[in-house]
């Protein structure tokens, strides 16, 4: 090492790394604890259910096979809707942050805001009348409902990238596309993923409404619990939806943890 290099700060750098690691470890620990808590809640729910005397109707609705297939339906709605949201919102967000397209930002975000502001039940019913009752209408409604957080976070993430980095990239001969792929998007990843996680949780919760238009899912437990005055069915449905939403949130956090670029 050269003696010219006296402004170096090895101790400072090292301590920074240390605290960085510490924060990391804390995050990792809570990430590991999260699924344990969720499993404990599920265990408590089932322990409580099977120590009660269940009526015949309850027995039929709450068989493990039935619960499992409703959960799968619910996940199917969620997954398809989320994938469609990503395919629409991320490219749209990228497009709207490119200088020539900036002027479309305001009208597009207004439109997307409208999708989020409209009541979810209303959206689902409107799309059902238009497209027929079934999962397709539910998925379309969920997409309209959940585009906003992903779009907004994609744009915010890209806007937050220091413009001098973009200029440095262009200045060293990277094409605009290369700067987008290798600099802007990697740096925007944490914010984009946070938006995706928000959308996912939103979609899991809202997918419960799919039952009103015969789209299936765990919402069925809640509606039949209310309509037939079966509190245990109602509680099971609500807890399952909540656990599912929390599990999806956890999964999102894990992905964010892994995908966060190093060095940030």
């Amino acid at each position, binding site marked *: 090492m*050269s*003696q010219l290099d006296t*402004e170096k700060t090895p101790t400072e750098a090292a301590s920074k790394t240390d605290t960085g690691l510490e924060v990391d470890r804390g995050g990792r620990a809570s990430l590991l604890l999260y699924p344990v808590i969720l499993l404990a809640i599920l265990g408590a729910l089932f322990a409580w259910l099977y120590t009660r005397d269940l009526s015949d109707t309850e027995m039929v609705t709450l068989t493990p096979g039935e619960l499992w297939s409703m959960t799968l339906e619910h996940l199917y709605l969620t997954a398809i809707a989320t994938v469609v949201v990503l395919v629409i919102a991320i490219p749209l967000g990228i497009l709207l942050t490119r200088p020539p397209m900036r002027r479309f930002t305001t009208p597009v975000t207004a439109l997307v805001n409208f999708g989020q502001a409209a009541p979810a039940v209303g959206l689902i019913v409107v799309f059902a009348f238009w497209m027929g009752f079934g999962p397709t209408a539910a998925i379309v409604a969920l997409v309209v409902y959940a585009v906003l957080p992903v779009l907004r976070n994609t744009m915010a993430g890209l806007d937050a990238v220091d413009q001098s980095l973009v200029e*440095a990239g*262009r200045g060293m*001969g990277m094409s605009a596309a290369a700067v987008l792929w290798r600099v802007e998007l990697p740096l925007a990843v944490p914010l984009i993923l946070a938006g995706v996680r928000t959308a996912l949780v939103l979609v899991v919760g809202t997918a419960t409404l799919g039952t009103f238009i015969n789209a299936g899912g765990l919402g069925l437990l809640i509606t039949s619990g209310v309509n037939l005055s079966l509190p245990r069915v109602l509680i099971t449905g609500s807890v399952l939806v909540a656990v599912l939403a929390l599990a999806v949130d956890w999964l999102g956090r894990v992905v964010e943890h892994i995908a966060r670029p190093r*060095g940030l």
Partner: protein
Amino acid sequence: MSESTTAPTEPGRITGVPILLDGVTKRYGSKSAPAVDHLTLEIPAGSTVMFVGPSGCGKTTTMKMINRLIEPTEGSIVIDGEDVTTMNGDDLRRRMGYVIQAGGLFPHMTVAANIGLVPKMLGWDKQRIAERVDELLELVSLDPDSYRDRYPKQLSGGQQQRVGVARALAADPPVLLMDEPFGAVDPITRQRLQDEMISIQNELRKTIVIVTHDIDEAVKLGDWVVVFDEGARIQQYDSPERILAEPANDFVSDFVGSGAGLKALGLTRVNEMPILDAVVVTPEDSPTTAVQKAEAAGHGHVVVLDRARRPIAWPSVAQLRRATALPTRYEPDLPIVGMGATLEDALDTMLVSRAGAALVVGPRGRFEGVVDIDTVMQSLRDNRGAADTGRSPVGTNDAEARIEVAPDTGEITLITPDQVGTGRGRYDDGAAEPSRSDADEGSDSTALPQTSGERP
């Protein structure tokens, strides 16, 4: 400076290429005044040209037009005889280094990945990129083993700036463009980085364009200084000495400000002065040997050097008599100046040091010798009144001006309508006419633009 001065480091071969802006104009919108107005500017190969001027004078715009981050509205840019105005901008920029304030490092990439970006784009293989990265880290005085895998946030501001310079030099471009490169670091680090920049440039001899608003930095780093006013109108394009001694007009003298005489101290560099020999030893030698050597040479101090000939310590004979072994740890506050440091920096360092002298180091921190206050004062006295008579490069905002490139030498001559055939043309608009065409300089005209080192 006389020819007999010690010049331990031979300046390297010129690896830069000449740049010519030919009648370049940049207009934003059709109605507004042009940001850059019919600028014709010659940037000689291998020299450092500083663009200075107040904010908004168009200096940054001018620089960004050289690598076409900003496209000129009119005119052409010629690099090494090739008109690059219409070539692919990305390809052009890969052939030029670009350094911005605070380095502009990508925070999600390691130091090595940052430096290796351009070579990777140029399709170098991994092995070659890795070797190049280490070589460049050495060049900017960062130890490759401890720095290559760090992320930018683990570096200090000055270190980030060094990595920024290393990244710009990665593919060995002939041209380096720097936009306020030392603006974001503290004054001490800035001075150090400037000194290192000078010694790197002595080694590499690139064509460097630096934009700055700091006249002190401009006269310190530049072989040539362009002072711009609004619209990138050249007020003076001259050597730093003449900018300080003979400002072309009130604008330039206002910009130079007071203390021009003191600033002139910043123009002579340590490598233009006689450097004294010193007794050198290695940490393996015994203190007794060191004392004997010092007494044999009649010196009061010895310099302890490491294997790479970098100074470790500078003990006096009295200290040596008491010591049982020679120091092996780098003394933190050694009075060290670079070969490229100015007399101002050197004097400052000496006044602080107990010895009233300073150690001179060359490229990569290698020890070259010692300077003391007496030598500095002597060379200042010798220096006074010396004038630089070299030909300045061509620069004008005259829309009617045409340039002529000599086919054999590549020398550029400016031809203006009112100047053809006349001896000493001055412009009507009162702006200084910085270029001296052949007719002006008579027999001296063949002298290439050179650094301020040569004086009669």
